[in-house]
């Protein structure tokens, strides 16, 4: 009992530890907010249109058509996911500060790290959802092409010898293998790791900048620099100091394996594992750096 006769609000047992639940609440809220804003739907629609348009190359061979569909679809997924990663993450913190919603959240028993992580996870959820939608359409386009090809092959070999039928079955199996290529999953995983990494860079930039334009342009420039790192290493690898400075920029070129997979090559799981490890390690450190900046930021 206190002097005024009331009971003390805080008991000795009350603690506020890190809560994954609070992180998930903020993440889901971020996703909801993003999905209800039309701009991301627009990005997605553009992506879906490009993927669907890959169907219109009937004058080419099946192999050519498959390559066009896979290259276009994976390329579009890569571009749109990068755009969503940058634009979606860039506006997370500035809009919270501008609308003062950040005050109402941080005034609650919410750790700054939970808030930051929640916003970042929300952005990743948006990315996952967008990629899933594009992948579904991609799979549908592939399936349509596959069914058309199988029908064509079946009709071609009607009335032919048993050996010709065996040949037809083999060709159909080849078509199915080419369409339902498990290797495509590797390309998508690499793209997801890349997009997550660029989203983390954007998050870091947004922890110290309030300008939305700055938060979009700088990560984009980092992305371009990262794509050129391989070329820089080829051309100026001997200049150790320059390469040491450049090491701060992630090498985004390492995530580009879609082209190889679309050429029918098998990318070893070990290689994929190392790419993802690279992406995750960079992402984790950048998120920690973002937390360090944000924890000291005056709101």
């Amino acid at each position: 009992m206190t002097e005024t006769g009331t009971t003390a609000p805080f008991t000795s047992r009350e603690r506020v530890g890190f809560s994954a639940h609070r992180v998930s609440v903020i993440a889901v809220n971020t996703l909801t907010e993003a999905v209800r804003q039309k701009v991301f739907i627009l990005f997605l629609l553009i992506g879906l249109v490009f993927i669907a348009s890959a169907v219109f190359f009937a004058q080419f061979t099946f192999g050519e058509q498959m390559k066009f569909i896979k290259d276009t679809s994976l390329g579009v997924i890569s571009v749109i996911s990068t755009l969503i990663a940058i634009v979606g993450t860039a506006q997370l913190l500035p809009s919270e500060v501008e609308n003062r919603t950040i005050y109402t959240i941080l005034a609650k028993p919410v750790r700054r790290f939970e808030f930051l992580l929640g916003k970042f996870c929300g952005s990743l959820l948006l990315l996952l959802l967008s990629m899933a939608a594009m992948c579904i359409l991609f799979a549908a386009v592939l399936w349509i092409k596959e069914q058309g090809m199988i029908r064509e092959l079946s009709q071609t070999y009607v009335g032919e010898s048993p050996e010709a039928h065996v040949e037809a079955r083999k060709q159909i199996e080849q078509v199915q293998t080419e369409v339902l290529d498990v290797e495509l999953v590797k390309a998508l995983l690499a793209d997801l790791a890349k997009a997550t990494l660029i989203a983390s860079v954007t998050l870091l930039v947004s922890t110290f900048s309030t300008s939305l334009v700055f938060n979009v342009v700088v990560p984009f420039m980092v992305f371009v620099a990262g794509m050129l790192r391989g070329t820089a290493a080829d051309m100026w690898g001997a200049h150790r100091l320059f390469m040491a400075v450049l090491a701060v920029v992630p090498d985004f070129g390492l995530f580009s394996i879609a082209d190889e997979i679309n050429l029918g090559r098998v990318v070893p799981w070990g290689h994929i594992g190392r790419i993802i490890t690279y992406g995750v390690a960079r992402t984790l450190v950048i998120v920690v750096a973002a937390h360090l900046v944000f924890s000291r930021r005056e709101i």
Partner: protein
Amino acid sequence: MDAIRTEQLTKKYDLGWRKGKLLALEKLNLRVREGEVYGLLGPNGSGKSTTLKLVLDLVVPTAGDAWIFDVPCSKVVSRLHVGFLPENPYFYRYLTGAETLEFYGKLCGVRGAALKKRIDELLDLVGLSRARDRRLAGYSKGMLQRIGLAQALIHDPKLLLLDEPTAGVDPIGSKDIRDLILRLKGMGKTVLLSSHLLAQVQDVCDRIGVLNRGQMILEGDVQTLISDQRRLSITVQDLPETARARVEDAVRAAGASIVSVGHPQTTLEALFLEALRKDQQGEGEHD
């Protein structure tokens, strides 16, 4: 126990290279007692919002300390029993009223059926039950202020920090908010409200503190501060004009002087509210 206590709390903002620092708050010693309504007043830029931000750990003090119910403000647990309504809040435009409260409730650890019940109670309390499923983008200023109050109350906090709670709100909404604050006080809650609308503060606050250029220049009980002990006001009714001269003579005979004689005035706000009430009653009769 003091709900809020600050000792030598100081904040200097860094204005950048070669621009020096801005002294926003200087050695503030503030004590807000548990269960009272404390008004933090001052002109724009006096340090009111900075004080609230320091108490909520939104900014780091340059010097000094602050506690909420004896827990340092730098600890997250200090905010377990605090509800905050910022100035001109916008919230998440794409969430409905109910979804907004659900979001904040979950952040405070309120879940399940208890959360649902609390949301219904609060929407009823702030008069937004009918707008619960409308997105906040479609809310008026007053409605946003009310949903802001509701989110501040979602976890039944013991301390409320309200930054300009009636700014931009119409007189009816303003009165509702003031009535709500008094109700909360009756429930034993502590309220620290910052405002520069003095007339509204006068009606609800027990104590006030006046900040100017980062320093507390005046503090004390409202009624004590605003009453002029040297003067006495007696209101009479139905006094004939002939007896008025005798009353004035009696005052002078006692050695006092008459400062003014006239008819008491109501406030514009009271007049406005009365007119609306009569109009609504009139409509009711016609129905």
